[in-house]
């Protein structure tokens, strides 16, 4: 169901769009170098993106300036909404069959497991994905990048994780696309992932990238994660065992949520209480 669409806003200040990739790369590299030095001096590894990352211009006025306030999760925060098969149709995990014809591009299978911080499978939870088409165009009326719309590809998928935490989508490899952070800014190909755990505190939205992308060092969004090991966790592995003959290439990507705070029960491992059908 298409409704309310939102749009990127014009960048503040006329000069911003004239900044070049070289300007931005210098900022990205300076922050990265400072982080590596701090790490060598015994500083902590940073496993999440920086909320304050000036090379990603849109973050400048949108990052909290005060530290996040530490608190112990209570009551509702220790649970997650329940999703069941009444919420998601089985066909929603195949993005290549949602229209009357075959979408253009390289068909791929993306599969993996959702685990919690203790390595346990997160079963019976909702995984949502969205992405650009093979030419790097979103079905979004404010994406006016002059690349073709594919009438057979919307780029939206959903599934519920299996008892072993597994998810699996059939889709099309998305293309890189330009954006207006600076002059000649291009996003590496990526698929957006939205995940729930067994607790609301585990809620995460992230992006899966493809191995070997030349745009990684240039991209201010990918680089909001300053730690190389942490960044690597967003890159899928090509997996020939997932590849299907004369059909689709396979990529494996496992997702780890934060550790649970609530006492865990056997039923949750099986997803038994997450579907009332």
């Amino acid at each position: 169901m298409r409704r309310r669409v939102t749009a990127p806003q014009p960048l503040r200040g006329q000069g911003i769009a004239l900044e070049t990739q070289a300007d931005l790369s210098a900022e990205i590299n300076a922050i990265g170098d400072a982080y590596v030095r701090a790490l060598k001096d015994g500083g902590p590894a940073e496993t999440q993106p920086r909320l304050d990352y000036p090379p990603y211009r849109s973050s400048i006025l949108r990052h909290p300036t005060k530290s996040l306030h530490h608190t112990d999760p209570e009551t509702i925060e220790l649970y997650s909404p329940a999703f069941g098969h009444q919420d998601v149709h089985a066909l929603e995990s195949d993005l290549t069959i949602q229209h009357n014809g075959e979408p253009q591009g390289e068909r791929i299978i993306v599969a993996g497991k959702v685990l919690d911080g203790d390595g346990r499978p997160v079963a019976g939870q909702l995984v949502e994905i969205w992405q650009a088409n093979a030419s790097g165009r979103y079905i979004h009326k404010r994406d006016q990048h002059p690349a073709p719309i594919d009438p057979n590809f919307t780029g939206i998928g959903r599934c519920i994780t299996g008892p072993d935490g597994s998810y699996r989508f059939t889709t099309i490899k998305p293309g890189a696309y330009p954006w207006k952070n600076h002059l000649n800014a291009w996003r590496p190909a990526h698929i957006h992932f939205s995940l729930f755990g067994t607790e609301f505190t585990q809620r995460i939205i992230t992006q899966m990238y493809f191995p070997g992308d030349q745009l990684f060092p240039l991209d201010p969004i990918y680089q909001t994660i300053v730690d190389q090991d942490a960044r690597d966790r967003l890159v899928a592995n090509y997996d020939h065992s997932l590849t299907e003959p004369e059909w689709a290439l396979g990529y494996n990507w496992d997702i780890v949520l934060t550790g649970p705070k609530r006492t865990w029960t056997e039923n949750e491992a099986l997803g038994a209480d997450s579907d009332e059908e």
Partner: protein
Amino acid sequence: MSTKLVPTPAQTVGPFYGYALPYEKDNELLAPGSPGSIRLQGTVYDGSGQDVVDAILEIWQPDAEGRIVQKTGSLVRDGYTFTGWGRGAVGNSGAYTFTTVNPGPTKPGAAAFISVAIFARGLTNRLFTRIYLPEDTEALANDPLLTSLEPERRKTLIARRDSDGGLAFDIRLQGEGETVFLDFQ
């Protein structure tokens, strides 16, 4: 708690979620006009006081009796089952709206609240906060989170009661009156 695996990093929701994450009746935890239903509304602001027009919020709450609901049907709503979870993208003015119920206290004497996750273009990771009801001042005065905050900051977590019985709660990502955002590590 010792964690053996390092969590996957987050990334921004970006600007183009509009055709993917919103869905029919996503912000209607109850049908508007249902007995006991209220409107929860507010605006998301950036550090210059501008409306953030590409934010999306999720709320998760107990029912009016304080029960934590574990019912499916948030994505395909049947019109009467209260699942406790909803999703609402802001409109062109930066305003969001939910139809829901006042959350009940999950134990006697506890302050009732709605849990919120905020996503937006330019926000590299979701932010968590809480919306407390304004009326039960004794419970608010004893709440562990609220009592750990300076009075000025505490105010950012307490909703206003609208004249129609609804709740008003603005979110300020940055600057004066910056909302308290939570870390559960």
